[in-house]
């Protein structure tokens, strides 16, 4: 029986890791390499790293950081942030990442998805879609770390990137980011029922039951979480954690 993957999503800002709330107020939570070592010990399924300032600072990926992560990461990991060219995709895969995550580039240069999927296989090309609800409740897609709205519906975008060859989609709710209120199940369900590739739920996880909801009601193949794995208690003290395997099994599989 294939397990539902439970993926800590770690945000890089400069040399450090941060955690945001609704894409704002980044709080420093530690050193990335140290976090990878802890997650190794905790036998985590997979890791996601997102460099949240690479695109808005108009710089490419931090290859030195990615190779340092790869050298310590004995589980699959994906990297996203600032990727705009096929050569960058190749370098990231060559240093040891399993997956390359595209977001802004998926809009500005959809050919990159096609080209990267043809060269490295769909399974290594992931598209992250950042979504925020308008005041009228309409789900809208944002790029450039949530700063710029684009005119395509989340469902249409998901279908388009699947057709271009993406192997997986991270559905990220900006409104739920860092809130612990649970995933946007309706949104997940709309997207997972319109594509055939796996959906990773992201944004809002606060407890184990949220993972189960994303899987059973949202149709997600995997779940990602940030705050749940880096903060502890109501005062949000920094603590890198991950549920025990038995707890995840009881809740998910």
């Amino acid at each position: 029986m294939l397990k539902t993957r439970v993926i800590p999503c770690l945000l890089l800002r400069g040399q450090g890791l941060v955690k945001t709330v609704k894409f704002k107020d980044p709080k420093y939570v530690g050193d990335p390499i140290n976090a990878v070592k802890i997650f190794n010990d905790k036998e985590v399924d997979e890791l996601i790293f997102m460099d949240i300032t690479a695109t808005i600072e108009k710089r490419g990926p931090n290859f030195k950081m990615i190779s340092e992560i790869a050298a310590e990461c004995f589980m699959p990991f994906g990297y996203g942030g600032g990727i705009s060219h096929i050569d960058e995709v190749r370098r990231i895969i060559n240093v040891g990442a399993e997956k390359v995550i595209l977001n802004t580039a998926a809009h500005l240069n959809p050919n990159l998805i096609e080209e990267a999927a043809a060269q490295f296989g769909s399974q290594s090309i992931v598209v992250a879609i950042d979504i925020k609800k308008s005041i009228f409740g309409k789900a809208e897609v944002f790029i450039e770390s949530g700063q710029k709205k684009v005119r395509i519906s989340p469902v249409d975008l998901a279908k388009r990137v699947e057709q271009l060859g993406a192997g997986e989609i991270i559905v990220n709710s900006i409104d739920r980011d860092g809130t612990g209120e649970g995933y946007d199940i309706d949104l997940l369900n709309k997207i997972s029922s319109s594509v055939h590739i796996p959906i990773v739920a992201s944004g809002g996880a606060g407890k184990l039951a949220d993972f189960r909801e994303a899987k059973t009601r949202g149709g997600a193949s995997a779940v990602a979480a940030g705050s749940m794995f880096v903060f502890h208690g109501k005062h949000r003290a920094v603590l890198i954690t991950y549920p025990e395997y038995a707890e995840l099994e009881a809740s998910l599989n």
Partner: protein
Amino acid sequence: MITIIDYGLGNLGSILNMLKKIGAKAQISSSLQEIERAEKLLLPGVGAFDNGMAQLRARGMVELLNWKALEQKVPVLGICLGMQLLGNRSEEGHESGLGWIDGQSVRFSFDGANSGLKVPHMGWNLVANSKQSALLKDMLEELRFYFVHSYHFACNQPQDELLKTHYGFDFTSAIEKNNIMGVQFHPEKSHKFGMRLLSNFANL
């Protein structure tokens, strides 16, 4: 010393990183001289079957590898596509494989109750022993590994199956025949389980 065969496919760095972590001596090499002297061979690989075989042929490695595996009988471990290349052929292509283990790779295809299952089979899954092996020494508890693949190995000789995994049905997730072994999953990305399997290989 384990020699990881570099034939232009896949991410060899991850495998070397894990071997270093567990204290095993290893090198990555595309040199026929170094491969000729190798004590143990690790055949990695991701991507298409035909491309894998074409790359091995273009580098003049096939005859040398036949000699190392079948005559000299050094331990060989194929990983992912590297396991599939140990068989006779694959539905994915037209090239013949190394043919060291009697079997072929076939694409996952699901219908009926299983039609919701996605291909590739990607993520963590359990393995169950089909026989005993030094590769699985002291690995007695429930074992899980990370998989990413659209084709799976099918043995013609049931005694060659080492591990099986359930995805819609039971498929062969590891094979072993004498000194030749293959695993469909990625031990280098399967933290403690992968470390122990690779340690066992290093200690053969």
